[in-house]
């Protein structure tokens, strides 16, 4: 909670807007960009991650907080929990599905 110029907010807003519109255009017509489905999915996920970084910097000041980085520290430990839950669930359920459906 510190005093930041309006410029930082405007930069954050405009770049988030561009990233959203770019993702939207890819979603609506991936062929126009010469992208196959998995590549298009990877691109829009990458745009979402960049937008997360932009918004958490410009609006929340997560990466540029003043003083010791307490908020960033707990965010990074939460992020490791998130990755374990999501990657772990997908991995286990995918194996379960393969083992339950031996014919496919």
């Amino acid at each position: 909670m510190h005093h930041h110029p309006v410029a930082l907010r405007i930069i954050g807003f405009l770049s988030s807007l561009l990233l959203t519109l770019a993702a939207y255009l890819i979603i609506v017509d991936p062929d126009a960009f010469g992208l196959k489905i998995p590549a298009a999915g990877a691109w829009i996920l990458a745009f979402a991650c960049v937008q997360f970084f932009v918004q958490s910097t410009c609006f929340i000041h997560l990466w540029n907080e003043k003083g010791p980085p307490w908020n960033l520290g707990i965010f990074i430990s939460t992020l490791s929990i998130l990755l374990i839950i999501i990657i772990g669930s997908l991995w286990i359920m995918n194996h379960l599905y393969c083992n339950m459906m031996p014919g496919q």
Partner: protein
Amino acid sequence: MQTQSDVKVFGFWVYLMTDLILFCVLFATYIVLCNNTFSGPSARQLFSMQEALTETLLLLVSSFTCSLGMLAVYRKRKVPALLWFLITFCLGVAFLVVELTEFSHFLAAGAGWTRSAFLSAFFTLVGTHGLHISVGLIWMLVALVHIGLRPFTAPSISRIFRMALFWHFLDLVWVFIFTVVYGMGHLQ
């Protein structure tokens, strides 16, 4: 952690991180179940990308106006602060209206939460986010009354800051709902 309000912000941030874990579990459930349509409508058949984009833009602009409102609060300017938060509130209501209209279209098409595992996971994830938005709107209304009636003090500024933090957090979660649920659903 210099001041008491910094400690309160840190405590609220820890709550937001536990909320993030809640959303993460719902995301994992959705990703696992999103192809189990039980011969019902699939994500691609059901979702309208125009509606999803409208919702995304409404929340993005509201997050921006909320941050401008917070700047006005730091500068102790009542009228701009009230105006920016009022715009944020209206955008939040508009988001909720679009989302509920979308839900009612799905229900009218026979695609309710009892139709398939995919739809149960969809309504749980997006509905939980919508519930958070509703709570955020009530909180913003309380903050508006507070700004209007009381002078700015260090504790009241910190309280408004936590409300703004909650609102930005909900926009961040929506970015991933737009990408993973609507975007990837439409790409399939």
